């Protein structure tokens, strides 16, 4: 599946997007964030406070417990500051 990052999540990880193949044990968005945080210092830094980072699956906001099965695109980003 495709991951896409925005704002300081993007800056801390150091890339805009990537293809990933998480293990089967990664079921929810929260699982995915934890799994990513273990991939290296830049990821650990981006997900240092997992309650702050928000997620969207296929361009819709989701909660941390949302299942990732079937997702084409998952985005991680800070709380929004538009308007």
């Amino acid at each position, binding site marked *: 599946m495709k991951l*896409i990052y*925005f*704002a*300081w999540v993007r800056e801390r990880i150091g890339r805009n997007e990537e293809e990933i193949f998480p293990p089967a044990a990664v079921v929810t968005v929260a699982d995915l964030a934890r799994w990513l945080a273990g991939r290296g210092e830049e990821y650990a830094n981006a997900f240092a406070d997992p309650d702050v980072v928000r997620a*969207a699956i296929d*361009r*819709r*906001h989701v909660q941390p417990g949302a299942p990732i099965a079937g997702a084409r695109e998952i*985005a991680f*980003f*800070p*709380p*929004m*500051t*538009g*308007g």
Partner: protein
Amino acid sequence: MSAKPSDDPPAKVRVQADPFDAGAEAHALAAGRCDIGAVVTFTGLCRDEGGRLEALELEHYPGMAEEEIGRVADQARQRWPLLGLTIIHRYGLIRPGESIVLVVAASSHRRAAFEAAEFLMDYLKTRAPFWKKEHLKERGAGGWVAATVADDTAAERW
């Protein structure tokens, strides 16, 4: 807040880098119609934060930005009897004094137009995928603007 029929005109939603003309958008919404009694126009501008800000850089999630604004617009159209709705949100580098966001809500009577416009702004701030980064006059690139509890609270009251 009467429940409303679903045959209203769809909202016009645009996400763009270019500036917009708030007056022209408000005029276009009501032009040639005699059923509209109230048009509320809200424009959000970039402040200079006491002179220290050079510009704001607005990052957005292309695709989701338009879709999420559309979903918030649908909620507003279900809650208030709107006769027209235009929402424009800019991205890219925006300098103090320039416009960032526009909401134009039209209805038969003022209350629905006022309330819908305020609801839309409160929801856009917490749900539309945009992020502001400050560029400072003194030190160049500043930090990302933090989301405020006040914005969350404002959205929750609806």
